[in-house]
């Protein structure tokens, strides 16, 4: 009797802790229900819905031009790529050929958006593992891109630059020179990122061998983007289903086989180099021509189902439109990369420490509005 009391007194108990919806590491209003034993994570349950705005339902009400504006508010860090996805899908349905100039500009802006998104991710990644300075370095370089976007279309984050049939405006006369300036600047900055964070011993110890995701699991959880490529699963939509001007450029798909947090990190750093090279190949060869094909004021898609996928900074974004021939879709479904990437969090974080969870979550690069929509 006596001994059992002592035993139960000293039993180590699992306890429950609420991470979020207001927590610095969840980068938004994600709520994680953690079951912890001391510092070791036993279970992670994401609880979604805190920023659900029923975007898909709103799409059923709006015209196709209006839908483009809604997509900005999903994954706001790759807003332009989301816009492009919807426009490409609508153009596919209308069998509309956009001018070469539009295709090239879309690709350039898309890759710049990817760089800007990765810059922010890199800053936040550093902050999550405790190196606060990276945040400001990432934002410094992102600022140059935001200025370019602002000059081009008037908005810095939610750009709405694409419309079905082309672009909202032509590019600014300064665009080419400013992008070149940025390329020259950023080429000196990625090595700086490496010196500050990648090569740091503490950072490598924190990320190597942590949150390992095998290739099989990456495929079965439907992971995409840098998360899947960090596990050796080649899945770049830009390679396999090139859209816009991506078939004209030569670029590599960075792949890592380790599947740990550091692999996902390095894939993103290499992606920045690749995006830079894509922009570099295209920036001198923007063809002359129209920046927009005129479309009808009210776009009505022919009856049928249409699907278009693009590679956002986070992975594969799919737009699936079912049209009944009216001015708005009967049903529109977004296949967002963040949702499937979040679903594997429990799988890879269990068994790690709280610090590991935060580092792992940072390399999943979650944008919560993209998950909740």
């Amino acid at each position, binding site marked *: 009797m006596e001994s059992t009391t002592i035993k139960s007194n000293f039993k180590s108990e699992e*306890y429950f*802790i609420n991470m979020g919806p207001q*927590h*610095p*590491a969840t980068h938004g209003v994600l709520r994680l229900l953690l079951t912890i034993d001391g*510092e070791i994570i036993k279970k992670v349950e994401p609880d979604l819905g805190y920023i659900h705005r029923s975007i898909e339902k709103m799409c059923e009400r709006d015209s196709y031009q209006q839908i483009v504006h809604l997509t900005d508010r999903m994954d706001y860090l790759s807003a332009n790529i989301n816009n492009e996805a919807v426009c490409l899908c609508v153009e596919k349905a209308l069998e509309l050929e956009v001018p070469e100039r539009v295709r090239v500009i879309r690709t350039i802006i898309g890759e710049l958006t990817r760089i800007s998104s990765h810059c922010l991710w890199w800053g936040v990644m*550093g*902050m*999550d*593992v*405790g*190196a*606060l*300075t990276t*945040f*400001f*370095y990432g934002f*410094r370089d992102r600022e140059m891109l935001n200025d370019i976007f602002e000059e081009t279309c008037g908005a810095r984050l939610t750009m709405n630059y694409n419309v079905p049939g082309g672009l909202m405006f032509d590019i600014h006369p300064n665009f080419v020179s400013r992008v070149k300036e940025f390329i020259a600047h950023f080429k000196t900055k990625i090595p700086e990122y490496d010196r*500050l*964070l990648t090569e*740091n011993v*503490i*950072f490598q*110890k*924190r990320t190597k061998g942590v949150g390992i995701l095998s290739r099989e699991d990456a495929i079965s959880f439907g992971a995409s983007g840098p998360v899947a490529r960090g596990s050796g699963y080649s899945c770049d939509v830009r390679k396999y289903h090139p859209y816009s001007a991506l078939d004209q450029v030569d670029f590599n798909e960075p792949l890592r086989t380790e599947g740990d947090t550091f692999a996902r990190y390095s894939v993103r750093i290499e992606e920045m180099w690749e995006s830079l090279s894509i922009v570099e190949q295209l920036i001198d060869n923007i063809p002359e021509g129209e920046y927009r094909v005129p479309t009808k004021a009210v776009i009505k898609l022919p009856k049928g189902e249409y699907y278009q996928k693009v590679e956002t900074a986070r992975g594969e974004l799919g737009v699936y439109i079912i049209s009944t021939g009216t001015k708005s879709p009967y049903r529109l479904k977004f296949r967002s990369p963040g949702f499937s990437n979040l679903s594997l969090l429990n799988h890879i974080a269990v068994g790690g*420490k*709280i*610090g*590991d969870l*935060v580092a792992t979550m940072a390399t999943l690069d979650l944008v919560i509005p993209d998950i909740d929509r």
Partner: protein
Amino acid sequence: MIIGLSITRDIHDWLYGAMPEWAASLTEMVLIALVYLGIFAVAGLFLVLLERRIAAWFQQRLGPNRVGFQGLLQTMADALKLLSKELTGTTKADTFLYNLAPYFVIISSLMALSVFPFTREFQAFDINIGLFFLIAVSSIGVIGILLGGWGSNNKYALIGAMRSGVQTISYELSVGLSLLTMVLLTGTLQLSQIVEVQKSGWLIVQGHIPAIVAFMIFMISGTAETNRAPFDMVEAESELGAGFHTEYSGMKFAYFFLAEFINMFIICAIATTVFFGAWLSPFGITESIPLLGVFWFLLKTLMLVFLMMWFRWTFPRLRIDQLLTLEWKYLLPMNLVNIVIMAVMVWLNLTIKF
């Protein structure tokens, strides 16, 4: 109490002339306590500002530069704001412990500050176990952190407090042992005597290689002991929100915050005293002006403070198990070997003396 500067001597004589001895010494104690409280507050506020400006410099920002000349009054303004804020608390918290915690932290820092030899004979009390007193008193602070974490009735605070307990107990060993290495050279724990020994060369020169190793271990474990990045497990903001002081607001929070900066100052001041000759000027260039000792002491300390800030704004944070591995598997064995080397060196008289 030894106070050698002439103005304090005058006050001392006047007090003893004007009132009975017990009243005079009581008044003197209160006066000295007030002076140290003043030093404490000013140093804390200045260090907060310094940290913010240095962080801004590292991060390509401007930092606070609007309130007063170059933002000198910014932290005053912040302190006033914190004073006027509501003191919130949690329900079902252990109110007594919750309220007690900040005072433990602040008192331990304040007590430790009193033994430093800022310049010749400018020392509130010079006890013969000075170094031991410093180590003992500065580790009282962790009790405050543990109480705060426990009393808050918040799981994040509790995790932070437990981490702090583990961390301080581990790194206390390295702090103590690395200082002990230097005590082998000085042969005394009294801080004024340690300074006296260094008149024939700062200890880091006297003890050369083992002293440099001891200094490096001391700075690493000192950073860990003050819970600063890269060892800020206690308040790892991306993991635990604000850690042990999550539930504190207003002036109680400010106490924790100030104490952190004072602790950093204390660690650097210990390093200055033990390794870099406290108030002694390099090559004795200002030997004849004792007041300049304060300048040298603060200069050396602030350079070490800068080093610690440099750590903080460059390195990522360690994980809790890596933190313990570093201490128990690397620093501690290195430290023990280092002590033996130092002992052999002192025995064979291999020290460098001028």
